[in-house]
C-alpha cells in the first residue's frame, strides 16, 4: 500500500499532519474523548464515593440537608438538560445527513440556550436564594434550630451539594465554550456528511455532562422519601 510522503497529504484541510487519513483522525479523536470521559468519571467518582460513605453513616442529616433544596428547580433543570441533549444530537444528525448550515447552527444555538437556562436557574433561583437563606457553608451559613445535633453534617451535605453541582456547572460553562467554537466552525462550512468529527466528539462531552446531572439530581434532591409517607 502506498503511503503519501510528508507534506503531500494535505489535500484535505481538516487533516492534521500526524494522521494518514481523516478516518484515522476521527477514530483517534473519538477514543481520546472516551478516555477523557473515563478520567471525568474518576474525578466525579471521588466525590460520589465520599457522598455515599457519609450518607450511609449519617442518613438522617442527609435527608434534612436534601430537604433544603427545591425539587422543582432540580426537576426543571433535569428536563432542560435532557432537551439540550436532544438538540445536540439533532445538530450532529443534521450535519451527518448533509442538512443546511443554518439548520445545524439553529440546533447548536438552541442547545446553548438550554445550557444557559440551566445555569440561570442554578445560579439565580438556587444558589443566590441559598445565599439569602444562609445555607451556603463557609460563605453564608447559620445553623437552624430544627436540625439539632445533625447541624454539622447538614452543613457537610451542603458542601457536597455545592462542590458537586459547582464542578458540574463548570463543565457546563466549558461546554458552552465548545458550542461557541462549533457554531463558528459550522458557519465557515467545515461540517458535512463526510466530516463531522468535532461535532460528534463534542456531543459525547455534552451528553456526559448531562448524565452526571442525571446522577446528581436524585442523589442530592430526591433522598428521604419526601413525597411518600414513612420514607425515613
Amino acid at each position: 500500500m502506498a503511503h503519501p510522503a510528508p507534506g503531500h497529504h494535505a489535500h484535505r484541510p481538516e487533516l492534521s499532519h500526524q494522521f494518514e487519513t481523516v478516518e484515522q483522525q476521527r477514530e483517534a479523536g473519538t477514543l481520546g474523548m472516551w478516555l477523557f470521559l473515563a478520567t471525568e468519571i474518576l474525578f466525579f467518582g471521588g466525590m460520589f464515593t465520599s457522598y455515599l460513605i457519609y450518607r450511609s453513616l449519617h442518613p438522617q442529616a442527609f435527608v434534612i440537608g436534601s430537604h433544603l433544596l427545591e425539587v422543582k428547580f432540580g426537576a426543571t433543570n433535569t428536563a432542560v438538560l435532557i432537551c439540550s441533549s436532544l438538540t445536540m444530537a439533532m445538530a450532529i444528525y443534521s450535519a451527518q445527513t448533509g442538512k443546511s448550515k443554518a439548520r445545524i447552527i439553529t440546533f447548536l444555538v438552541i442547545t446553548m440556550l438550554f445550557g444557559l437556562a440551566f445555569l440561570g436557574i442554578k445560579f439565580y433561583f438556587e444558589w443566590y436564594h441559598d445565599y439569602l437563606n444562609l445555607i451556603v457553608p463557609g460563605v453564608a451559613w447559620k445553623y437552624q434550630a430544627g436540625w439539632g445535633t445533625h447541624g454539622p453534617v447538614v452543613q457537610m451535605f451542603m458542601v457536597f451539594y455545592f462542590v458537586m453541582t459547582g464542578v458540574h456547572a463548570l463543565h457546563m460553562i466549558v461546554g458552552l465554550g465548545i458550542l461557541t467554537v462549533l457554531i463558528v466552525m459550522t458557519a465557515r462550512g467545515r461540517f458535512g456528511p463526510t466530516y463531522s468529527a468535532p461535532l460528534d466528539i463534542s456531543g459525547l462531552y455534552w451528553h456526559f455532562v448531562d448524565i452526571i446531572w442525571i446522577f446528581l439530581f436524585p442523589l442530592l434532591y430526591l433522598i428521604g422519601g419526601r413525597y411518600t409517607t414513612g420514607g425515613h
Partner: protein
Amino acid sequence: MSTVVAELPQAPSESRPNYLTANYGLKSWLLTTDHKRIALLYLVSITFMFAVGGIAAVMMRIQLIQPQGAIVEPETYNKLFSIHGIVMVFFFLVPSIPATLGNFLIPMMIGARDVAFPKLNLLSWYLYITGSLVLLWAILSGGVDTGWTFYPPYSSTYSHTHVVAAGMAIFIAGFSSILTGLNFIVTIHKMRAPGMTWFRMPLFLWSMYATSIIFILGTPVVAITLFLMVLERLFHVGIFDPAVGGDPLLFQHLFWFYSHPAVYIMILPGMGVVSELITAFSKKRVFGYTAIAYSSMAIALLSFLVWGHHMFVTGQSVYTSLIFSVLSFAVAIPSAIKVFNWTATLYKGSISYEAPMLYALGFIGLFTMGGLTGLFLASLSTDVHLNGTYFIVAHFHYIMVGGAVMAFMGGIHYWWPKMTGRLYPDLWARLAAMIIFIGFNLTFFPQFVMGYLGMPRRYAVYPPEFQTLNVMSSAGASILGVGYVIPLIYLIWSFFYGPAAGPNPFGATGLEWKTPSPPPTENFEEIPVVTEEAYNYPGKKAVVGV
C-alpha cells in the same frame, strides 16, 4: 538570503534539517508541537525540579549528621522533607520517563510522525510548568510542612504554611499527567505504522501503555481529593473534619487510591526502559516477551487494589487489612516475572558493559531489593514494627531512586545519541554509573538497618546511638550527589561538542534506530512498513524439532 538558498542545488539527504535545526529561536521552542522538542522541554524542566528536590535532600542529610541536628530548626526540617517529597514525587518521578523518553520515543517506536494530539502535548507541558511555578512560589515564600501526603486535619486545619498553593500546584500538574496519559493511549492504539502489531511493539511501549492507564484512572482521584482538602482549609468546611462528622481516614483512602498506583507510574516506565537496555546490550531477543508485556498490564491492574497497605496501622478493619496484604503480595508475581525474564535474557547473550547497561544491571539488583523489602511491609505484623521508620524510607528509595532514577539515567544515556545526534564520553559515563551505584547503596542501605532498629522517619533529631548509621548515609548522599553532577556536565558538553553519533551507535534494533540522529521533524522519510518483531537480533535462532 532565501533566493540564494533557492539557487543552490538540492542538499544531500545527510544534511537535511533535523528537528533541532528545523527552525530556531525561543518562540520555535515555546510554541512547538513536535513531540521530540516537547520531550527536551520536559527534560530541562524536570532536571531543574530534580535539582530543587535534591537541594532539600542535601540539607536533610547535613542536618542528620549530628543527633541534635546540625543546621536547621525542626520546623525548617519539616519543610525540607515536605519539599523534597512533593517535588521529587509529583514534579520529577511521575513525569520523568513518560514525559521525556515516552514523548520522544512512542511515535518513533510505532512509526508515526507525532503523537495523536500534538497541541494537547504542548498544553501538558505548560500545565506542568504552571504547577511547578506555583510550587516554587510556595517554597520561596515560606514552604509547606505537611509532608508529601497532606494528611488532614493537620493540612486542612493546623498547618500555618502554604498548603493551598502546594496542593493546587499538584492539582494543576496532575492534569498534565492526565493529558499525557490520554495522548499516549490514543497514540499507541491509533497511530501504529502498517504491520506494527501489538506483539511486535517494543516492551517499552507496553510499559508506557500500562503507565498511561494509571495516569488517566488514578490522577483524577488525587486531584479531587486535594481540591476537597483545599476547600476545607479555605472555607473551614469540609468532609475530612471529625468536628462535622467527617473522617480523616477517608482522605487517606482517596489519597492512596492514586498515590499507590503512582508508585507504579514511577517504576513501570523504568521496567520498560530496562527491557530495552537488557536486550540491546545482550544482543539477543528478549526472553519471555509476552510474559513481560502482560506483567506490565497486571501490575497496572493490581496497583489499584493495594492502597490499603499504607493504612495497616490507622485503625482500618483487620479484615480489610488482610485482603490488602494478600493483594500486595500478589504484586510480587508480575514483578518477579520481569526480573526472571531479564535475567534469562542475559543468559548466553553477547553482553557489553556500556554505561546504559551498567544502569540496567544496577536497576535489576536494586529493584529486587526494594521489591523484596516491600514484602516485609505487606505483612501485617512486621509492618507494625517497621511502619513509620527509616525502613520504609529505604524501601521506597530502593524502588524510586535505585529503580526509577537508575532506569531514567540508563534510558537517557541509551537514547541520548538519538535525541541529540551526539556521543558522550563513555568512560565518564561508566564512572558516573558506578559512583551512583556505590553512593546510592551507601546512602540507603544503612537506613534499612536504622529503621529496623527503630529510628522514626521525618524526625529532625535522633538518639546518639544512630549517629554512625546516619553519618554513613550522609556520606553516601554526598557521593550520590557527585554521581548526578558528572552526567549533567558531560551531557551538556556532549550536546554542543560531542562527536557525531550516526543513526545507530549501539547496533540496536527498533524503528527509532532506523532514522537519522537527530531525527527529522517528521521522524521518518516515509511511514515505515513493519515486517518483524522488535528484538530481531542476529545470532542463535531457536532450534525447532530436535
